């Protein structure tokens, strides 16, 4: 297929059936609307393009596109703004997913993180920062285009005119159930409007996050009330999903369905199956259900690593201090400051300072070399970086980390390594010489 612009690729995403043996529903055909296959990677491409386009067409001069977003809308807007030579600024109350932050910076976006809540209550501060920024940007001025995704009807329209109708065309009818996670409420509201216009009996299930949990792209039950596009009447039911369940759903999609969905899509899958299970038991005829896979999994590796580290299990590293036993640690060869100075004068051991480069630059034992702990760990992973009998004195701030590495070197067969007891701090306190470059 040939296109003149990448923005023409937005939409017309595939609707793929989930194999019945995966979800276990006997009477319901469950389909995934693969919004992650949009060109910039998510369902937000549609809304971003629809909201930004009117401002790009008119000759409005150099203006900065601004959005309150810490995720996919920011990503799509950054690309679209960049293509049209406009700067983009993402304002966010917290960038919770570091990969997205880096990606936005790579795309040329500017990110502003809003301050955290004050520790001491300031009674004069009656407005939340989000609302303040909202007011600042909404005030008419030449400098900003505020796409305003939480309030902009063009967000809903994007889905009413594309996402919803695509589902009807692909199925030849509206599905019996439509399940969507609620973020800006744009995709669920817009799609639901199109589906209900075709068949008023469509049941719409909105999914929110458990209150104490965080699932990227989904608001919790309180936060949805802050969304201008959110109308409780859109949904027949609102149910909540935990972060753990979202990751479980993601696992099923990535491991069994070949759909590399992120946690938002995982939450939608999990919430869909959970909701449909009880209905399925009562059914005798066939029904269809559609849920939205919002985006891809790759950007959420740190999110998954933090919550479910066991899923990213790797074989234990060789030559790692983490594998040392208590006995090995207790037997680590050490030397105190006075003996170390004698030893240095007599045997001229290689003195390795494991501290950071900045600390080393400020103050260090004359003649020592700086191999920062992380790099030293990498070196040892490959093997001994010096001869087995080369005398080595290891130092760190207080002698704790150097003792661990001395124990590890001993295990690796080194015969003449010692850790400076009490570290650089003991060295300084004993009045031994320290130099600066």
């Amino acid at each position, binding site marked *: 297929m040939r296109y003149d612009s990448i923005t023409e690729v937005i939409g017309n995403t595939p609707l793929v059936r989930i194999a019945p043996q995966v979800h276990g529903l006997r009477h319901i055909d469950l389909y995934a609307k693969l919004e992650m296959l949009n060109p910039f990677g998510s369902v937000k491409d549609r809304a971003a393009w629809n909201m930004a386009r009117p401002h790009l067409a008119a000759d409005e001069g150099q203006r900065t596109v601004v959005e309150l977003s810490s995720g996919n809308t920011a990503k799509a807007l950054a690309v679209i703004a960049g293509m049209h030579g406009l700067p983009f600024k993402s304002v966010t109350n917290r960038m919770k997913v570091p990969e997205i932050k880096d990606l936005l910076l790579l795309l040329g976006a500017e990110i502003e993180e809003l301050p955290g809540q004050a520790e001491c209550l300031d009674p004069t501060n*009656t407005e939340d920062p989000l609302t303040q920024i909202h007011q600042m940007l909404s005030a008419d001025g030449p400098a900003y285009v505020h796409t305003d995704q939480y309030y902009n009807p063009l967000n809903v329209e994007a889905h009413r005119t594309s996402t919803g109708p695509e589902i009807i065309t692909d199925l030849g009818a509206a599905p019996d159930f439509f399940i969507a996670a609620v973020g800006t409420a744009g995709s669920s509201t817009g799609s639901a409007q199109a589906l209900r216009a075709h068949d008023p009996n469509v049941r719409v299930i909105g999914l929110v996050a458990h209150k104490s949990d965080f699932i990227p792209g989904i608001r919790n039950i309180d936060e949805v009330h*802050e969304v201008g596009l959110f109308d409780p009447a859109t949904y027949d039911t609102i149910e909540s999903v935990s972060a753990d369940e979202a990751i479980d759903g993601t696992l099923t999609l990535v491991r069994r369905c070949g759909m590399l969905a992120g946690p938002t899509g995982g939450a939608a899958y999990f919430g869909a199956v959970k909701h449909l299970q009880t209905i399925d038991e009562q059914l005798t005829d066939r029904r269809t259900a559609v849920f939205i896979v919002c985006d891809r999994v790759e950007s959420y590796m740190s999110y998954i690593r933090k919550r479910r580290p066991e899923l990213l299990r790797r074989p234990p590293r060789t030559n790692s201090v983490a594998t040392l036993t208590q006995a090995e640690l207790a037997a680590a060869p050490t030397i105190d400051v006075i003996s170390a100075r004698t030893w240095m004068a007599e045997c001229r051991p290689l003195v390795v300072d494991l501290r950071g480069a900045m600390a080393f*630059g400020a103050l260090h034992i004359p003649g020592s070399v700086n191999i920062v702990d992380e790099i030293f760990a990498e070196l040892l992973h490959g093997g001994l970086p010096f001869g087995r009998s080369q005398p080595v004195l290891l130092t760190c701030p207080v002698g704790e980390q150097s003792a661990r590495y001395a124990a590890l070197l001993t295990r690796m067969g080194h015969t003449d390594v010692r850790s400076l007891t009490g570290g650089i701090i003991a060295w300084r306190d004993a009045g031994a010489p320290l130099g600066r470059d």
Partner: protein
Amino acid sequence: MTAPLYLAPRLEHRLTSLLGTKGFLHQLAGALGSPLNVVLPDQIADNLRRFQEVYERRNLSGKVYFAHKANRSSALVRRLADTCAHIDIASLGELRHALGSGFSPDRIMATGPKSPEFLWLAARTGVTVNLDSADELETLVAIVTKHQLPPARVLVRLSEFDSTGATVLSRRSRFGTPVDAFSRLLDALERHRDTVRLTGIAHHLDTIGLTEKATALESCIALMHECAARGLSPHVIDIGGGFGVNYLADSAQWETFTSELSNAVLGSRPPLTWRNHGYGLRNEGGTLRGALGLYPAHRPLAGPRYLDELLGLQAPSLSRPLATLLLENLHELYIEPGRALVDQCGVVLARVLEVRDNAGGECFVRLEMNASDVSLEEHGVLMDPVLVPRPDRTCPSTGPVGVYLIGNLCLEADFITRRMVFLPHRPSPGDLLTFPNTAGYFMDFSADHALHQPIARKVAAYQDGGRWRWCLDENYWPITSGSEDC
């Protein structure tokens, strides 16, 4: 009535034990009047220990300064003087109080806005001065020179730190020298080398945001090198306070309450507050706007744990843990906890004067105190009081009741809290309502004599051989034992 929405306070063993001694509390209030403040000096020593454990675990050296402004109590300050704690004072009066309570000048730091008299006494006695601005430096230098005082030890407080990568915004502060003016400040410090000695750099950000604090701390580490390059040799980074307190026992209660408050503001449930006050939230066409102007009362990551979490964060651009950077650069860490050090350190008692139902079915409980005597509401902390019935009264089996707590001022607005407070049963005149965990800012920070109403007396309570004993706050000294029987 709707289902009770409790916000039960988090009580550790000492406060639990005190609140269990009904006779003792009623005797105290009977003898000394209502309201009455009770502080627990031994608790502050325990709290100090928990902060010190964070230092020990991370091999850091440094000092813990108690931010005196959290409570005016003598007992708490004197008890702390008997430990290895230091103290942060923010007025001439606090400085005199600290010196008179047993803190030697080398354990005191002067912060905040300072009068010339305050600066003179600080410099004369040799306490460390945490300088707010270049102007304050000049005033101090003039005082030291004119009165031929020994060189003053100073820290400089900085603000408006830059971030790398994403811009991390912080609320602007009225305190401190902006980082971009630091170089000029160093010029002045070099010039005045004979009269002031720079021992460190400081900041305090009024935020619960860890990212902002990590950004500021990393900037300070870099600025220490700038000082060293100028031949100055500061060795301290002071990160201020703001470690917070976890006030509530149960996260589910807090989450339910905040959800229901949103629902009440949106009109989808009966009000939870007097005249459906939204604590900053409002209903605009069915959408919730504004901000919840409340302290996050359930806050598991608070106090020493918050400090530990901050120290474990990776520095945003140097990509090493902040604790490691402090340690390997041989910097000392100063902290200035206030609220977090007096966590669980006190309780305010008030007598119930009247219990009255109005025609609308609302129940008012009038207390012998007013809102300024326990300024929880002013500070946005929502936490239930504990009802301590008269010892001679058998508790009625009325079941839970939602009441509005009103004060003793002839003033419409004198609600102890605008929230409907749920009590396990209907109180009676003569019962006590106790407001636990109020030693940090809620006890004597705002109390005044409006309408000639009395302000609370303050007593120190301590356990002696398993029994609770007390003395007037001003009579407490660390050697106090068995002063007055209960």
